[in-house]
């Protein structure tokens, strides 16, 4: 509250520093990468497992990294104003930066395991970002849904990565991409592909996993702009592109990606049209973009991949800009409902103009970059050898709907007579319109001068995806050809859809209402089912009665051992052992103690008799040369008697002992199988390699003569550390339990 003005003014700039610096460094490397250079750094991490901290910068990584860094810089600058009055803005920026670094790590990793680590980090940081307003139940639900769904995909991806490692013999991506033919013909190819695709499809919200992305709009608008334009959801696309040289080219790859991508693109653009919340509308158009990208990555043709890369860049620019602009509208008017917003062009002229710029790129009007992207998409669709018509039809449909959505975004909120709004509309401050304006202007600049990104970004990325040198040339004018005709068709169809927008949305809403279950509801039912199953098995297996637990455990052990003996056979020498008198004495002590424990009426007698069993065991240890174990055993017995006595003395007398056949049978069976197991295990020759090793090394390497102690504190110190950690945690747990109990008592 009394922070000096200088610090308050400097803090946003400080947050801006890392992304800006990263973007500048990446821009500096751009010319070299455009010339075909590949930068790689590596350090050993777990060399024995082939896991190295290796990072590589090639055309594909650079394209993604520049989008992450560049849009990250603009979003941070925007948020400095947007979040300025938020109490938790420090948390916001820390999470935003953490997410940014996770994403950068993901796209730069050259080792699959490292890639996976960063993949999971993006899942975790995005969970925290989506649930940023954690007081809001809806935000919490959305965050949980996102982390569960992408987490499931992440586990599938991990399994896929391990299988790739098995098939290729390495986790290094640079080495794996040279082995595409080995993996494509490998027996594990189908499981690998399905697992990797499951990871990519959940992350990139393909149908039927599309529902988490619109729900994730619960996050503050700058986060939506960042996560759902340039980064998080594109991670799945990045994975598909990265694995393209290794996995692509088979029928399974082509058909899966094409069909899932096409269905996602069309379904999502219909759902976008149905929304009334501008932010949700944009969220669904993002899903549409992801579907389109997936569809084109299914292809092999150079122009199809070039279309995917170009569209990736186009989409990041206009989508981030539009999200930020909707943030301005929301801030300025207090609503995002398309039915209420109108006539804002006088109150918010700059936002209106910028929205128009971005939306033109989205709709694919010349001379915007969006136009080039769309032309390339049509050219790419027609170049796909297997099913050009199907892809082209899907792309034209989705794009026509995009044109309509772009029209809605520009015309509905800004034109027409002014409506009544929760707040008097006002223009956003300069920091909040300059960032989207830069993005929208870039969409225009790169459209006018496509050479700026054609050779420097798109071509190296396409080369990296296809794994062969490619030449790509972007141009605004391709001549009069089929793509141009399709472009005109798209614009006409889009205009038509816009004209009938009201009726279409009503129709879609009716359709949605008739649908028995949405994907979101199915997800809820799945979760509810899981909880029900967990509750059922808990009430059976963990009913809270210690006696039942013990009986279950002992019966299971007895059965398992008996089954093993019967199946495998067991050699036994059950001849009468020859023991010393003292050894017989110890044995008799143990047996007597056990019998008395079982039949006595007095709890004190039972505790003491149990102590006798322990002491007898300690004697056995002592006789067979394990004094440390014997001392420990003796001390533990003493303590147990002291501790248990304190409790037991306050309990009522034991009920009269009576025969319980089930318990008797279980204990008899357990005793018998253990006797057989022990007799069998001491019969054969013992492998003394480990003992010999410790005996030889104990004094020379660990300077100790007591081997037991040397093992505990030196050779296996990590194990001991784990054990004392358990001891400490158990103590603290018991302490907490007892305190809760005494606090609950009146």
């Amino acid at each position, binding site marked *: 509250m009394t922070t000096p003005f200088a610090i308050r003014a400097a803090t946003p700039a400080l947050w801006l520093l890392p992304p800006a610096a990263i973007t500048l460094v990446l821009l500096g490397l751009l010319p070299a990468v455009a010339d075909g250079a590949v930068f790689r750094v590596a350090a050993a991490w777990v060399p024995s497992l082939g896991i190295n901290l290796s990072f590589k910068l090639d055309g594909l990584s650079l394209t993604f990294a520049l989008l992450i860094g560049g849009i990250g810089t603009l979003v941070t600058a925007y948020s400095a104003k947007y979040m300025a009055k938020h109490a938790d803005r420090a948390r916001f920026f820390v999470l935003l930066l953490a997410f940014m670094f996770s994403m950068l790590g993901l796209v730069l990793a050259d080792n699959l395991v490292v890639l996976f680590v960063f993949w999971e980090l993006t899942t975790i940081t995005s969970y925290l970002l989506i649930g940023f307003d954690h007081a809001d139940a809806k935000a919490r639900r959305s965050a949980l849904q996102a982390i569960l769904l992408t987490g499931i995909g992440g586990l599938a991806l991990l399994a896929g990565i391990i299988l790739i490692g098995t098939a290729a013999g390495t986790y290094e991506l640079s080495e794996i991409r040279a082995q595409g033919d080995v993996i494509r013909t490998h027996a594990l190819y189908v499981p690998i592909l399905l697992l990797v695709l499951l990871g990519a499809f959940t992350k990139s919200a393909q149908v039927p996993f599309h529902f988490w992305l619109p729900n994730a709009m619960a996050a503050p608008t700058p986060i939506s702009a960042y996560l759902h334009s340039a980064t998080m959801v594109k991670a799945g696309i990045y994975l598909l592109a990265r694995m393209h040289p290794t996995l692509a080219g088979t029928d399974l790859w082509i058909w899966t990606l094409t069909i899932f991508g096409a269905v996602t693109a069309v379904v999502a653009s219909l759902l976008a049209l149905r929304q009334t919340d501008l932010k949700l509308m944009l969220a669904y158009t993002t899903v549409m973009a992801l579907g389109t990208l997936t569809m084109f990555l299914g292809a092999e043709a150079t122009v199809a991949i070039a279309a995917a890369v170009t569209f990736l860049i186009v989409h990041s620019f206009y989508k981030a800009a539009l999200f930020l602009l909707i943030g301005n509208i929301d801030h300025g008017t207090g609503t995002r409902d398309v039915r209420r917003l109108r006539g804002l062009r006088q109150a918010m002229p700059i936002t209106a103009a910028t929205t128009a710029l971005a939306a033109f790129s989205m709709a694919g009007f010349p001379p915007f970059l969006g136009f080039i992207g769309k032309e390339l998409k049509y050219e790419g669709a027609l170049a796909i050898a297997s099913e050009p018509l199907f892809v082209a039809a899907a792309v034209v449909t989705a794009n026509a709907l995009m044109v309509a959505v772009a029209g809605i975004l520009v015309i509905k909120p800004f034109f027409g007579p002014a409506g009544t709004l929760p707040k008097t509309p006002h223009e956003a401050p300069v920091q909040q319109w300059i960032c989207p304006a830069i993005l929208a202007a870039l969409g225009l600049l790169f459209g006018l001068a496509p050479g700026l990104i054609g050779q420097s970004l798109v071509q190296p990325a396409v080369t990296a995806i296809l794994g062969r040198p490619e030449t790509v040339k972007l141009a605004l004018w391709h001549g009069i050809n089929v793509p141009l005709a399709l472009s005109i068709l798209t614009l006409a169809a889009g205009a038509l859809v816009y004209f009938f927008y009201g009726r279409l949305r009503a129709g879609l809403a009716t359709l949605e209402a008739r649908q028995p279950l949405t994907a979101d509801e199915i997800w809820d039912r799945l979760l509810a089912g899981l909880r029900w199953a967990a509750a059922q098995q808990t009430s059976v297996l963990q009913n809270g009665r210690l006696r039942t637990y013990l009986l279950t455990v002992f019966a299971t052990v007895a059965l398992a051992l008996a089954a093993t003996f019967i199946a495998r056979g067991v050699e036994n020498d059950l001849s009468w052992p020859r023991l010393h008198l003292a050894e017989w004495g110890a044995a008799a002590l143990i047996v007597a103690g056990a019998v008395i424990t079982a039949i006595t009426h007095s709890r004190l007698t039972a505790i003491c008799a149990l102590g006798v069993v322990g002491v007898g065991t300690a004697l056995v240890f002592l006789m067979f040369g394990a004094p*440390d174990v014997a001392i420990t055993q003796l*001390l533990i017995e003493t303590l147990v008697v002291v501790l248990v006595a304190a409790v037991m003395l306050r309990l009522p007398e034991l009920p009269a002992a009576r025969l319980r056949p089930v318990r008797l049978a279980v204990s008899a069976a357990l005793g018998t199988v253990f006797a057989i197991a022990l007799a069998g295990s001491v019969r054969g020759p013992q492998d003394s390699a480990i003992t010999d090793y410790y005996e030889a090394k104990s004094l020379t390497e660990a300077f100790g003569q*007591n081997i037991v102690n040397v093992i505990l*504190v030196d050779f296996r110190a990590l194990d001991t550390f784990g054990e004392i950690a358990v001891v*400490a945690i158990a103590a603290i747990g018991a302490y907490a339990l007892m305190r809760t109990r005494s606090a609950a008592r009146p």
Partner: protein
Amino acid sequence: MNSLLLSVASRLLLALMLLFSVFMLLRGHNAPGGGFIGGLIAATGVAVYAIADGCAAARRVIYFDPPNIAVTGLGLALLAGLLAGPFGDPWFTGQWWFINTGDGGKGIPLSTVLLFDIGVYLCVLGAVLTFVFAFEENV
């Protein structure tokens, strides 16, 4: 429990057992003993004292709160393990120094292993006393 005999004996026993526990801890590397056993002996001594003179008296004797002792021990053990790092060895590798006494012998051995064992001692002592006090005070 109000027993004069036990009360008097427990004071003697406590002193003896604490001393003995340190003895067991220090000799553990070459003869039966060590941090685990030492910790148990010390805890038994305090437990007997707690039974004879009450938990409040026993708490005064050990001065620190048992859960804190346990966690401190855990921290010392972890520190001993991590100390191998700066010497370029994998974690939990014992580091040894021999302080020269000038009499021609190999010197007084000091090691991270000893620190680790002291950590085990404190952890066991703290944990067992946490149990003991929880039972004695709440039941």
